[in-house]
């Protein structure tokens, strides 16, 4: 897999840590993390990124707001965003798929295949 720089934005520290380690050891990608939307926007605007794994349900600024802001910022609007969410209700899923996101990955994802899936959708 080609090297990629991936930003994970999630308020859950354990998930950030485990997902970062999973992508690093599975695909060898460089993983950046942010614990909130605001922090994620700052990182995305400042760092070259190949993709952003964005959690939806976060305090203060949820993932959808964060996505809108990423889209609104020319610096970040072209960065592929993959929603990584624990919201698995069909209505929620339909809502997510209507957004201009690259993919939606439902928690709990399969740690053995997530890297290859991300690589696939990014291609």
């Amino acid at each position, binding site marked *: 897999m080609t090297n990629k720089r991936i930003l994970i934005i999630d308020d859950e520290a354990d998930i950030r840590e485990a997902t970062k380690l999973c992508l690093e050891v599975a695909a060898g990608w460089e993983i950046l993390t942010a614990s909130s939307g605001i922090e994620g926007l700052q990182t995305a605007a400042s760092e070259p990124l190949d993709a952003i794994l964005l959690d939806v349900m976060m305090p203060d600024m949820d993932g959808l707001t964060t996505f809108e802001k990423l889209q609104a910022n020319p610096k970040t609007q072209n960065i592929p965003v993959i929603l990584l969410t624990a919201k698995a*209700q069909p209505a929620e899923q339909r809502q997510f798929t209507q957004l201009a996101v690259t993919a939606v990955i439902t*928690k*709990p994802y399969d740690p053995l295949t997530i890297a290859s899936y991300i690589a696939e959708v990014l291609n």
Partner: protein
Amino acid sequence: MMDRQTINSSSIDSLEILLHRMMNRIRQSLELPTILNGTVAEVRAFLGTDRVKVYQFHPDGNGKVVAESVQSQRLPSLLGQNFPAEDIPPAARELFLRARQRSIVNVSLQQIGVSPLDCLETGEVLDVDDIRFRPVDPCHAEYLTAMGVQSSLVVPILHRDQLWGLLVSHHADPRQVTERELQVVQLVADQVSIAIAQSTLLSQTRAQAQQEATINRVATLLHSMTEMKLQQALEQIVSALKGIGGRVYISAQDSGQAQLLTCGMQPVLSEKRKNQSSRQKRTQNSKFKTQNSSTHVAAPVEQYPSWQSCFSEEMQSGENGVWAIADLYQSTVPSDLVQAFLDNQIRGVLVVPLRYRQQQLGYLSVFRQAVEVETLWAGRYDQDDPRHLRPRKSFETWRELKQEQADEWSTSEIELAQALGSHLAMAIHQYELYRQVRALNADLEKDIQERKQAEIKICALNAELEQRVLERTVELQRSNEELVRQISERDRAWQERKQARASLERLSHQNELILNSAGEGIYGLDAQGKTTFVNPAAARMLGYEVEELTGKSMHEILAPSQPGETPNPDNPIYATLQEGTVNHVAEDLFRRHDQSSFPVEYVSTPIREADEIVGAVVIFKDITERQIVEQMKDEFISVVSHELRTPLTSIRTTLGLLSSGWLNAQPEKSQRMLEIAFSNTNRLVRLINDILDIERIKFGKVTMEKQACNAADLMSQATDVVRAMADKAEVYLAVMTTEAQLWVDPDRIIQALTNLLSNAIKFSPTAATVSLMAELQTQHIIFEVKDQGRGIPEDKLETIFDRFQQIDTSNSRSQGGTGLGLAICRSIVQQHGGKIWAESKLGKGSSFYVSLPLSHQSESNQNEA
């Protein structure tokens, strides 16, 4: 002169013998001729004269020798010969009658001896019975001489104070009559008078008997029970009255027809009279019938006006109403009538009006023709000859024959006619009555026959009626039974109907109650989509009054999501009306009166009558709350899903890394992954426990094991539970217990206090103080858990008690919170009848209060018992 004492005894004996013999003669017979003949014979024998005769006066004054004893060689017989009245002058008659004077004429001596018995002037009986002689009238002497008589003895015979006749003794030679002889003859004359009286009485009796016999015969004929033999009766009457003809004219009675019966000779009408009669007939329009061989077509004479007027006059003046005309020539009868009779040689008529009481029934007429009268006169007598005043010279028998003489109606005949007329009238009346009765009888018979026929018919009808009645009775019985059965069925049906009606009313009432009570809106539509009924819930939900919706197009009012006006094929309600389908629409929008919309779920069901869709009923309900609940449920599921998936994600990722072997060479990272996995596993366990706990408490599936507790004990125990946690967080824990008796589940109250204390510790900075206090009020005890944390925004003070409503999720979770602690606390407090709330000031800390009711004495007592 010789008195009675001079009669010697032999003479007396001879006289007695004579008288005795004469009396015997008289007694031997009641027949006057016999008596008279015997008398004259005895007297002549006694006197020894040539001729002894009995001369009887006629009513007209003439006389006739009715008995005679004659010495034929001495004097001629005068028997049967008549003598004119002039032969015995009235003076002589007067003496005969009033003085009973006897006369003795001695022609040769030209003397006459008279011997009255009674005084001429006074009529008293004279004591002296002598004979006084005086010269005889020369005419008298001449008369006797002409007769050849020289001696005569005349003794009057009186009857009923009338001069009946004379007992005369003639002798051709001169002869002296002694007083004795005169006495004897006088005695004989007296006996003759008696005999005449007896004989007259006998004759009258016989005549009466004959009349009665005639009347009886006629009456028998008339009063025949079977038939009035009027014709025979008429013949009997005509015969009895010595008529040559007769007729009975019966006036028109109730039968309306006059009747005429004739017998023998009848009056005839001339052509002129016939014509008159015809005219009269026509004008009178009379009807009559005749019963005789000769039928008269003309009207009877009785119908002549002249008859009726004449007869009426005659009736008024006639004797006993009888019209007795012996000689029509001498009558005052109108000439046309007279001619009608005379044309047929009818000379005399006897008309008896037939009356019964005051009713004029008709006339009985008997006719007589003229008769020839032959009279033997003693010597020719010419009344017209003036010489008749002179004594006749000859007494030679002269036969006088008079033709066309009227035949007088005697009194007895008139009486007989009257009697017969009475019987006839009575018979006619009775016959008329009989006829009427017979007619009535006939009518009655007819009526009886008709009634019998009617009775037969009635009997038949009765029988038929009885049969019908019987059949009808049977039918009625059947009908009755059927009726009873029907009534029973009807009663039962009525009861059933009553019950059904009651049920219907109950159901209707229930339906109305249901409709009124139903939370769902219900309305009915007719086939055109117009509202027929709306229940209050529907009206209320739509913001209308019920009356405003009835009769309106509900589709236009409600404006459901399916566009267009009713009928709209796309509208499910229209489909129900058209196709009869039951359509369930889970979600739609109805419009309220204020034009706002609200979500509804409805079911449209067709209303059918006799397989025809006549409308639809729509049941809808406002699903706003349900949608909210569902939304909340969805959100809860979403949150729970998220909360469950979050630790699972960590666990799966870490365990996946470990199981992949990628971290085999990195034991520190492996260890770290294990810790993350373990930590998230614990989190997951707590989460699951809290979720289950809150659901069980909420739905009452966790029984509160209430008991008497001391508030201070509960506060101490809760503090003990979190003391380690406070120590670890370097937070001071301050407890100020309050003694109070509570009736609570101590474990659950400790759990609630523990949750509040742990939350306070979690969100308190290091070295801060978390306090647990209690304030005792009248009815409640209020626990307070106070921290010195960052505080809670005002708008979150309520929502924080909802599930998964954490203010800072990441921090909370980092502190091991599940987001359900406060929700569990609220459920526990509510299960104890208490309240929980929070007060906070941002940057200064928060206070959570729990209010619980103090222990109830009753409950305490109950528990203690």
